[in-house]
């Protein structure tokens, strides 16, 4: 039997603490421990990308990160993208282009797109497809999602 430990994170710029089991999924700490339910669970096995968050600036599937591996990390979830009530440009593009249907994939899709555009501000279509390849949309609304990312890339 393991013991709980005090997990310290910088979540969306705010220091947060939660008691966690070492092997507890970061996804569960965010949703249940910190009440950040914008991060969604899809497959729970790293296939769908619905639980994507940024950890120390890089995209990860939070269902595959044990809490202990996140100790001291900087996490960005979908709740942390807007600032002062204004949507992030990628969020606005998804809204304007209709890049969301049921919405389950949207938080992960937007975080993957934000990270892609940080690394590659003007991606080609194939670069967008590759950057989002780990994020599945169960409504298959991929064309609008591609258009949203393209429009956000200016």
């Amino acid at each position: 039997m393991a013991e709980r430990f005090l997990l310290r994170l910088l979540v969306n710029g705010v220091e947060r603490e939660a008691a966690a089991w070492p092997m507890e999924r970061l996804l569960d700490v965010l949703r249940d421990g910190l009440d950040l339910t914008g991060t969604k669970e899809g497959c729970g096995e790293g296939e769908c990308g619905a639980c994507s968050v940024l950890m120390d600036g890089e995209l990860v599937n939070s269902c595959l990160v044990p809490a202990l591996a996140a100790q001291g990390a900087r996490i960005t979830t979908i709740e942390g993208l807007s600032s002062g009530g204004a949507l992030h440009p990628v969020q606005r593009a998804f809204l304007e282009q209709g890049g969301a249907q049921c919405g389950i994939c949207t938080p992960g899709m937007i975080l993957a797109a934000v990270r892609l555009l940080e690394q590659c501000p003007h991606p080609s279509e194939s670069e967008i497809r590759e950057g989002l390849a780990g994020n599945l949309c169960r409504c298959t609304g991929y064309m609008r999602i591609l258009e949203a990312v393209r429009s956000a890339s200016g």
Partner: protein
Amino acid sequence: MRGFVPDYELLAPSSLSEALALVEDGCRPFAGGTDLMVQLESGRLAHKRFVLLWKLDELRGIGANNAEVRIGALTTYTEVRRSELLRREFPLLAQAAAETGGVATQNRGTLGGNIANASPAADSAPPLLVYDAELELVSRAGIRRRPYHGFHTGYKQIDLEPGELIRAIILPRGRSRWRETFRKVGTRNAQAISKVCLAAAARCEGGRIRQIRIALGSVAPVPLRCVAAESALAGAAAGSVPDFPMEARPVSDIRSTADYRSKVARRLVEDFLRSLG
């Protein structure tokens, strides 16, 4: 059903020597977690004590001397595909890294973890076999090197002594004038496990194949180096497709059938042979 999380110990040592003591004490290595967390989720993670290697800098980094490139076991797929050196000298490995999982998986999945996980479908394995990779293994007793070829001894079995960890993957340099290919056949390039995967390289001179390396994934209980095919094909006219023995022994499973895998594996090799003309 998911494993009961409080049952699982995960310890975070601050140095490699602490980690090795824990491994000697029966802890299993835990790197990026992209395979182990999936096993935990499905209730198949039998072992309960793990040592988290992620923060050990001793296991990171890509370095080189004149003779070889040394890749720390915790090097992620993202680091492999971003490495200028690997892209230039070992392009099949960089390509395999780019076609493994999606971005999030590539950010956490490690080369050493992929080897230790020992899936016959691992896409990084055929390039490592083609490049004559060696493994640097470390334990409290010391360091040893061994060829990667032969490291997988059976389905999900590896030749690691108790107390040992994979510290680095070594690739011999000086490969000039080799023609190479990496082909992954699956339902989708990213985020899909291969039905068949081929890495091959050949050096031709005077219109003949002088040296050839062929390795296949997902067609045997282990990542397969096709030595019988290699020796049959050495000396053949470049661009010809002579008959050659295939060591593939695929099974039918959820992703494909044995028959399809056998046919495609042979055709991938034939395509490569034709391209040498």
